[in-house]
Structures are given as C-alpha cells and as structure tokens.
C-alpha cells in the first residue's frame, strides 16, 4: 500500500491511498484502502490521513475518520489523536499498521505499531525526512 497527504498554500488538505491488497486474497476481499473513513480521509477542519496495515482492523475501527473526529470533537492534537488510535486502540486489538497525516496547520504525524513503515515528509520550511525503521 502507498499513500500521500498534503496541505497546500491555499490551506486545503487532501489524502490519497493506493494498494494491491493482500497476497492470496480471495472471494473479492477488499481492505481499508478504498474505503473512505477507514484507510483514507481528509477534512479541512482537522486533518488528512492515509493508512496502511491489516485492513480489516482499520475498517472496523474507522481509523482515518476517528483521528479526524478526535481532533474536532475532543480537541486533541494530530499527534495525540494519531497515537491514541494507532498505538493504543489498534495495538490492543492486534491491528498491525500505521498512518500518515497532516493537519490544517501543517503539522505531520506518522505513527505505526509494526517494526517498520516506509515513510517521508517535506515542508515549505525545507524540513524533510525519509525513513523505514523507528
């Protein structure tokens, strides 16, 4: 699975996710990537999120929307909401994976509960980083 989220100069957020799914999948099995709210979500009021991991857990927990909702309704920061969902809720259920997200102020979050996630970011400040492991 691959994904990207962005905040542009006009203050607009967008999220995209694309995947080949799961090796050996059968019977038309679909994961979270094409499901809005689960593997992909964007709302200018909060954040843009793209997810990767064990899709069934991300669907059941409506992960991408949940992060946005915790920001809007609970006033959490992007980092707090991302960690609450990925590092606590999903981890407790054995839902392996991670998310990337950017909020309306350009803050970035990339929490994951597996041993690695291919990830990177770049900002207008010039700050940039790519990495795989912790």
């Amino acid at each position, binding site marked *: 699975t691959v994904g990207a989220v962005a905040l542009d100069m006009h203050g607009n957020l*967008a999220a995209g996710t694309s995947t080949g799914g799961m090796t050996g999948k059968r019977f038309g099995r679909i994961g979270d990537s094409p*499901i809005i709210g689960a593997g*992909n979500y964007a709302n200018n009021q909060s954040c843009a999120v793209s997810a990767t991991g064990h899709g069934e857990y991300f669907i059941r927990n409506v992960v991408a929307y949940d992060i946005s909702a915790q920001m809007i309704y609970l006033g959490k920061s992007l980092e707090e909401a991302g960690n609450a969902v990925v590092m606590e809720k999903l981890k407790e259920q054995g839902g392996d994976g991670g998310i990337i997200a950017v909020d309306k102020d350009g803050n970035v979050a990339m929490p994951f509960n597996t041993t690695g996630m291919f990830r990177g970011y770049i*900002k207008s400040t010039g700050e940039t980083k790519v990495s795989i492991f912790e």
Partner: protein
Amino acid sequence: GRYSLVIHGGSGNISRERMSLEQEAVYLEKLNEALQAGEAILKEGGSSLDAIVSAIKVLEDSPLFNAGKGAVFNYEGRNELDASIMDGSTLQAGAVAGITNVKNPITAARKVMEQSSHVMLTGRGAEQFAFEQGLEIVDPSYFFDQRRWDQYREYLRNSTQLRGVADPDNKMG
C-alpha cells in the same frame, strides 16, 4: 506560503536484519523521488490534490511497493488494485476497488470523485468508467513483478487452504 506533504510506502514487520543497506538506500531514494514530485506542485502554489496524485503515481509506478506495478497477487495469481482519494475542502471523495487494467489506480479514484456522482466503483464497471474517462489502460501483465510472483508461489506452498480444503493440522503435504 506554507505547505506540507507526507507519504508512505506501506508498513509491516519488516526486519532490519533482512534489509541490506543497499536495499534500504534504494527504497529511501524512491521515497525522496515521490516527495520531490509532490513538492514541485505545492511550491508553485498547486493544489494538494494534484500533489498527492503526483507523489502516489511515482510509488505506483515503482515495483518496490505493493501498489500499481509490483502489486501482490491474489489467490488466482492476478493483480486486483484498489485506491481512494478525498478532498478536505469539499469533503468529496472517490474510490475504485478490484480493478486489473488501469495503470495508475489513484487517477481512476480521482475521476470517480470529479466526474461521477458516486464515491466508489468496483470491478468491471470501474474499469469501463476509467476507459470512458480516457485513463491509461494497460494489459494486466504490466503489473507483474518477479519478486511478488515468487512471494505468491511461496504463499501457495505454505497456505493451509491447499486445494480449497482447510488443513487444520497445518500438515504440509
């Protein structure tokens, strides 16, 4: 003039021991290439939608990641691709699932969002829509990658669902 772009190429229990420094460098270089592609749009005042599509296409076109070229194989040995996109300013969204012949699935998701009244299209219908929208259609063999094919063969050898019959004792032949 503030902008930010974040990308991922998938997560998993990747072990550092099994990845050589050379392999790691190849992955990091492709991630940087995707960031450059997206930033080139943002720094010119372009839209976040254009930026994420540009970055994702770089990753879909690379056999290193499970999307587009280099996607994993399903039980029948075919590539079935899914994608979705969402615009935070309008809350519009588009998605495709189970497609086999659109070169860049993220472009199909965007067409669903912008050129249809639906959110998700699947299978043959989604492929027909993509064709009518003038997207690049490829032979399914375009997505083939030997490394993924070998993983698929390994999966079949190890799968407990041999010949469609569950093998509760996990006997391996």
